[in-house]
């Protein structure tokens, strides 16, 4: 697709821009490059197939193939499929003939390709619809001229122009030659909802078949002749740098080629990834440890709480004051495909294959790292194995480019999973939120104060309720840990605090939490989402003892989203039974991908509420992989229901919208089940004690080596009281007891082993009970 650019006519482009801009839509217009007959000829000579190219987004070939180019990155959010549906609908294409391709990085052609903040559909929908409508109008003109009848006597349908009063029809392929000779229309009429065929329908990602065959090329799968593989030893603390290093052992490893100072540490280039990994392990590096070796999570949280200060006082009619402080941890993104980038420098040009949320930023970064002009850097934006905000930062491109330049080889640079988690340079910042509110004699909220202190950038917004002059403040504490955008940014933390606090207020006012929210809703769409949640969840039907239901609602990115979560808590073991999502997306483009995003939001919300957490010790991230930065798996995933409200207004962002309310709905459900108010994430098992009289001890006190474990669980009991009859129980994540044993009487040793060869892989809860205490730990079988 890239060679088209060279043949475009500047004059016609200017005309087209002029024409489009009279629509007054305020769109980014840089991508609208018109049809060009000379180009059509060129394509014909090359491929025997003639192409009509009304703009950069669209090409119609004489064999009826419709090629739609999407500039935004695909990360699993379905952007390519959904935007192509909009083009195909407006041009009345036959979906079976549509091929979707990814546009390489080019600001001149596509405008911004930065893909984040749920902006792809909201930002590009109108221009993509216009791109399709342009083609439809030109095909109608072409047919009308061919038949010598009025344009109004023709209509478009599924890849054909039909004569309304007759039986003649011509396919888009038939018309493509003629259409390519026509001026681009000045007036575009977009369809109204009653004529939509694909917009508002439900389509899975278009490349599903390729994905299930393993054919799809992610960035990590790039294949280049002569490719070498690079990995790095990154600095062991935030701010460390290399003093010197010895690569003698590294260079002895078969397949290792070279080492360099790169990526803030030392990079190893090898014939294959395994050799590069071993090479990194064998490096002997002497580090300047930098100034952050005293940094740990406690220091950071203290810096946050120290900034809370005194909260504003409440109005005089307040008879009841509530105050609470909530705490939210750092999070890495940990997308399934670790950060990577492939760079092939050839003289004064360079090709890049990358999974990124910002291909133009990759282009600029590689240009500056290699000294090659950006125009000569071709960036193939590959399918990304998840992003969640991480891939907006393009550190991997910088490192890959500099290693390619230093080594002289085409390079695939890969972060190990451990690197990916420890070197996430845009962690969600940890934060604390101090909230204060009052109630008057009639149970109405008198005042609202929220101070959010972030270990990085962050803001505090108001919930979609009528609150008397809410006072929101934000500030930053210790910002040493690199932070940035994480799915739903500040809403991922604020909404947890706000929506749990609203529950606390509702209960203080002796009101049902859902009805209380309905009573203070400031917007009919909020009310509609809450009412739908109430119905779908059978909100008023009581649940058994030990089970509970919680609700939460949020407004942002132009949409509204709420959840009801149902849980059961049994002896401190939490099980999520059901998650119901109701989302008002305004204008729904693709129901299927909206549902997908909501499902993903639920799994993210539950995983981060219950276990995933980045902690800092001695200036470094402590977590090393999915074993200690844990995500929900199949056995934990609850029954999910998603209900989409389509109000027909403009589209909301979707990727972020489904996350914020999951965690507070969960925590409110826990309160409803067992009366424990969660104010700190991730939820600790010790907080979930219910009927037990024994003291619940923090999971840190018992350790399993190694964890994850294999066929034997070795429990380190050094910190466990040896009092009474010690018992060991192991539960699966659903709370089912799957192993139980009593220790020998008067057991005093510090180690105890259990045969786990017939345990299946997954997460378990280990519980050691003594005379006075229960000790709990999450453990993992591989």
């Amino acid at each position, binding site marked *: 697709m890239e060679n088209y650019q060279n043949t475009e006519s500047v004059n016609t482009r200017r005309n087209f821009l002029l024409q489009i801009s009279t629509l007054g839509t305020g769109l980014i217009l840089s991508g609208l490059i018109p049809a060009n007959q000379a180009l059509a000829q060129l394509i014909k000579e090359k491929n025997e197939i003639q192409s009509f190219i009304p703009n950069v987004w669209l090409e119609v070939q004489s064999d009826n193939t419709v090629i739609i180019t999407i500039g935004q990155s695909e990360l699993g959010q379905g952007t390519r499929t959904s935007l192509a549906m909009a083009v195909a609908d407006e041009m009345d294409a036959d979906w079976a003939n549509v091929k979707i391709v990814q546009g390489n990085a080019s600001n001149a052609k596509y405008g911004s390709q930065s893909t984040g903040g749920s902006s792809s559909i909201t930002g590009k929908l109108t221009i993509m619809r216009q791109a399709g409508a342009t083609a439809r109008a030109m095909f109608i003109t072409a047919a009308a001229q061919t038949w010598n009848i009025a344009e109004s006597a023709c209509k478009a349908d599924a890849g054909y122009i039909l004569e309304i009063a007759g039986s003649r029809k011509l396919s888009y392929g038939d018309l493509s030659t003629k259409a390519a000779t026509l001026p681009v229309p000045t007036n575009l009429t977009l369809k109204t909802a009653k004529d939509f065929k694909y917009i508002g329908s439900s389509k899975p990602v278009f490349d599903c*078949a390729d994905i299930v065959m393993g054919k799809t090329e992610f960035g990590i799968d790039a294949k280049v002749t002569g490719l070498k593989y690079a990995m790095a030893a990154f600095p062991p603390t935030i701010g460390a740098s290399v003093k010197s290093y010895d690569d003698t052992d590294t260079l002895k490893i078969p397949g290792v080629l070279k080492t360099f100072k790169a990526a803030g540490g030392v990079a190893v280039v090898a014939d*294959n990834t395994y050799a590069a990994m071993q090479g990194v392990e064998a490096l002997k590096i002497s580090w300047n440890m930098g100034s952050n070796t005293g940094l740990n999570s406690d220091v950071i949280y203290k810096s946050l709480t120290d900034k809370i200060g005194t909260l504003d006082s409440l109005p005089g009619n307040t008879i009841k004051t509530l105050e609470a402080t909530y705490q939210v941890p750092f999070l890495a993104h940990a997308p*399934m*495909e670790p950060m990577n980038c492939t760079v092939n420098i050839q003289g004064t040009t360079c090709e890049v294959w990358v999974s990124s949320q910002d291909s133009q930023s990759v282009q600029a970064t590689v240009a500056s790292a290699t000294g090659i002009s950006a125009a000569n850097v071709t960036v193939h934006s590959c399918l990304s*194995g998840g992003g969640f905000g991480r891939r907006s930062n393009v550190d991997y491109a910088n490192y890959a480019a500099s290693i390619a330049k230093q080594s002289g080889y085409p390079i695939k640079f890969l972060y190990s999973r451990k690197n990916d988690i420890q070197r996430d340079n845009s962690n969600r910042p940890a934060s604390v939120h101090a909230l204060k509110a009052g109630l008057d004699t009639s149970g109405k909220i008198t005042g609202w104060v929220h101070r959010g202190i972030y270990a990085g950038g962050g803001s505090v917004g108001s919930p979609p309720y009528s609150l008397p002059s809410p006072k929101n403040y934000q500030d930053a504490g210790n910002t040493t840990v690199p932070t940035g955008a994480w799915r739903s940014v500040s809403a991922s933390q604020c909404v947890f605090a706000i929506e749990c606090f609203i529950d606390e207020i509702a209960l203080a006012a002796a009101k049902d939490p859902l009805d209380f929210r309905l009573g203070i809703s400031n917007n009919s769409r909020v009310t509609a989402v809450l009412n739908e949640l109430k119905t779908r969840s059978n909100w008023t039907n009581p649940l058994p003892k030990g089970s509970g239901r919680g609700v939460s609602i949020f407004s942002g990115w132009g949409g509204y989203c709420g959840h009801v979560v149902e849980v059961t808590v049994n002896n401190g073991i939490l099980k999520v039974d059901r998650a119901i999502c109701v989302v008002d997306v305004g204008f729904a483009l693709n129901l299927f991908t909206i549902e997908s995003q909501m499902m993903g939001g639920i799994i993210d919300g539950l995983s981060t509420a219950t276990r995933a957490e980045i902690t800092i010790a001695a200036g470094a991230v402590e977590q090393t992989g999915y074993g200690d930065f844990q995500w929900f798996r199949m056995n934990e*995933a609850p029954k999910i229901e998603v209900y989409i409200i389509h109000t027909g207004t403009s589209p909301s962002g979707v990727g972020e919208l489904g996350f914020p309310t999951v965690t507070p709905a969960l925590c409110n459900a826990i309160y409803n089940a067992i009366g424990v108010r969660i104010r700190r994430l991730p939820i600790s098992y010790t907080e979930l004690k219910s009927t037990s009289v024994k003291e619940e001890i923090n999971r840190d006190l018992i350790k399993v080596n190694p964890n994850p474990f294999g066929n034997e669980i070795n429990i380190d009991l050094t910190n466990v009281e040896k009092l009474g009859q010690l018992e060991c129980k192991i539960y699966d994540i659903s709370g089912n007891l799957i192993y139980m044993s009593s220790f020998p009487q008067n057991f005093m040793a510090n180690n105890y082993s259990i045969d786990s060869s017939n345990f299946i*892989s997954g997460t378990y809860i280990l519980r050691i009970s003594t005379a006075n205490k229960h000790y709990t730990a999450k453990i993992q079988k591989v």
Partner: protein
Amino acid sequence: MIIKINNKDYDLNIDPNMPLLWVLRDILGLTGTKYGCGVGDCGSCMVLVDSVARKSCILPVSQIVGKSITTIEGLSSDASHIVQKAWIEAGVPQCGYCQPGQIMSAVGLLIAIPKPTDDDINNAMSANICRCGTYSRIRAAIHIAAKG
């Protein structure tokens, strides 16, 4: 060392300790099998070893000599394997990165238990992580495949 991948024999002169994952990806160019963690945590790298799903990132290539390996590329060349068809019908993938591993785990499950219950699915599929959260659709797809 001769290894058999997707019914094809390869004679390789490589480090016998190299995990099968990197042999597939870097030496043979079979990149459908994915790297997610390299330490057995995530299941992205799942392949069938004589019909049993195994994590190729922790499987030294020397251990598969004399065994028959099936990767995602070996299921079919046209997405016609019953599990692939079920995956398409349920529209499972979001980013798709974990899906080759999920599919190989599901194929292994259905070989061992042709009509799995939800508990069987929980047991067999919990070695795999899907960071995009497609679990409901994976479960639906396995039930579709089991119906045949």
